[in-house]
């Protein structure tokens, strides 16, 4: 299988990354605007500020690669190609949502794009990602799994249990820690005796690297390299800790009130790329995204709510 992005020249790559981040930012900002109208009767955890990690990583994947993520999942879902209409309808609790209105924002899924379900319980998808990777290995399938999780998730026992197993079995997977330094309102330093997540991963015997820049291009390059190492040379698993920043509150539409004091060394991923992209391209993207988003909202709005009998559907397979 050929990685669609391997031969991209850098302008195309930058344009794609810009477009994807712009699109996700615009969609999430719109969700934040809609939220007070109470049409989205479900908690939303926004990734605004953090998009570079999922966008950069997914740009290096093929459609049949698999990603697992968390309740903070809009960005991952969209970056991997998840259907926007189905996502908006899911947020609106409509029958046309990706989970038929049963999952909401925290449980997005689009298996046709390799987006496996997001979970609201911290760290629960980390071992599932390893299980999926184990299946790839047994079937000798040339795909990888990427597990996305936060800095808080690395405190859970299951994180360590999974890293050990993944390293032991040399699984075709990449662990991506989106380190925004916070678990709700607790800073990493209140929860961890040192900030060396990357080192902790490396002692299990896997290549581990920290990526500081919150830069989609740098993340793309690393993941692209890692994917090749794994698929071509069987050198999985590989671990990345991506430093990033969330601009909104842990949950809900509001900006963090401590945002003005935010660490200066973290760059805004959209601003970084915006400098590298032509005015005309940006204009085109802006129009395209507006159109797509309006259509998706309209679709969500006009879709019907689930019928009563669906309450009892899908309890068992």
């Amino acid at each position, binding site marked *: 299988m050929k990685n669609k992005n391997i031969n991209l020249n850098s302008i195309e790559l930058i344009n794609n990354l810009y477009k994807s981040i712009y699109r996700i930012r615009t969609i999430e900002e719109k969700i934040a605007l809609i*939220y007070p109208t109470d049409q989205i009767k*479900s908690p939303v955890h926004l990734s605004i500020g953090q998009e570079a990690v999922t966008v950069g990583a997914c740009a290096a994947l093929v459609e049949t690669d698999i990603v697992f993520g968390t309740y903070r999942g809009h960005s991952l879902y969209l970056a991997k190609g998840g259907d926007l209409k189905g996502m908006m309808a899911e947020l609106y609790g409509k029958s046309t949502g990706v989970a038929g209105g049963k999952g909401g924002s925290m449980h997005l899924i689009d298996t046709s794009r390799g987006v496996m379900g997001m979970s609201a319980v911290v760290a629960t998808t980390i071992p599932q990602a390893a299980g999926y990777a184990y299946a790839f290995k047994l079937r000798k399938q040339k795909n990888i799994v990427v597990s996305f999780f936060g800095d808080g998730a690395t405190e859970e026992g299951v994180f360590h249990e999974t890293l050990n197993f993944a390293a032991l079995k040399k699984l075709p997977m990449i662990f991506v820690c989106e380190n925004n330094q916070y678990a709700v309102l607790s800073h990493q330093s209140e929860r961890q005796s040192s900030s060396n997540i990357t080192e902790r991963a490396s002692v299990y015997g896997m290549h581990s690297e920290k990526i500081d820049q919150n830069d989609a291009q740098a993340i793309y390059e690393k993941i692209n390299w890692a994917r090749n190492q794994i698929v071509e040379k069987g050198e999985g698993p590989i671990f990345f800790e991506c430093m990033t920043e969330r601009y909104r509150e842990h*949950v809900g539409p509001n900006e963090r009130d401590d945002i003005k004091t935010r660490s200066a060394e973290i760059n805004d991923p959209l601003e970084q790329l915006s400098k590298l992209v032509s005015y005309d391209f940006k204009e085109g993207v802006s129009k395209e995204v507006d159109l797509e988003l309006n259509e998706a909202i309209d679709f969500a709005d006009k879709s019907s709510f689930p019928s009563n009998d669906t309450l009892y559907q899908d309890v068992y397979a």
Partner: protein
Amino acid sequence: MPKSNRRDRSITYASAINEATRQLMAQDDSVFVLGIGVDDPRGIYGTTSNLSSEFGQDRVVNMPLAEDAITGIASGSSMAGMRPIVVHERMDFMLLAMNQLINVAAKSHYMYGGAVKVPMVVRSIIGRSWGQGAQHSQALHSFFMHIPGLKVIAPTTPHDAKGALVASVRDDNPVIFVEHRMLHNYKGQVPENLYEVPFGKARVLRTGGDITIVGISHAMVECIRAAKSLAAASISAEVIDPISLSPIDVQTICESVEKTGNLLIVDNGWTPCGASAEIMSLVIENVQRQDKVKMKRMGFEFVTSPTSKILEDLYYPDSRRIAKNAYDLIMGKKTDWEPDVQESPEIDEFKGPF
């Protein structure tokens, strides 16, 4: 020192828990609180607010995300004579701690032949509001009722919340203390002093002669509303809050059933193998009345909690369906009686973001 004890004071359920914790910590320095986010500005819906500034971060411990370890740390400290109160913002997160809770804490006293005690309290909150879905709104009290060695208490009024927490912390066993998010803002009379609401004693919240309605946790609020609708149809319902689920006060329930001959149990949870099944079995085994007692139970529909509001409304038993079931049970057949609509402001007016 006993403080002035105004009995006419009305405070919220969340404040009652906060006050009980503060007073217990002031009185006994072995009491401490631990959990994820317990010292953050939101203070677990206000239930732990300001405790860390008063007692310091060594006694109000913000924990890493490590539920099983948190539970083991609490039980280990209790073996050393501490009285920990573990707090989980959602009851669902207790599922990550089942090993320490059930294999270890619940069994230690017995399997070591009484050599150690594990006086710990695990507070957890049932997360229903809206859209919380599959993993943030589960009510798992029945799981814990199944385990010998654990006590389970689920108070519904601010008065009982305070008193039950005091009894729980002073108890020498692991206690599962069940709260419901939609109860936290309820106000009620709460004495200022420390007092205990004992285990194994139910409370009759409303007396009546036609039907006994037992309601658990937030379902109790809907049962009281249903009783009002029934009263409008000249049916008097006796509403009983078990408060303590393990041990449970079967006597109070049976005495009421002797009188009414009709029993409706409404759980804030699923019915199969649940608290409602247990209560009904106990009534069958213990009731003295020779003639037939009509019985029914209600709970969450037996599906995973959906997020869409329209499905959520079907999933949870509401006062209308409770009243209707009570009415039809008494009549012995399905009727087309429609109860007065009772509002559920805590549900209807809820707005996010969480």
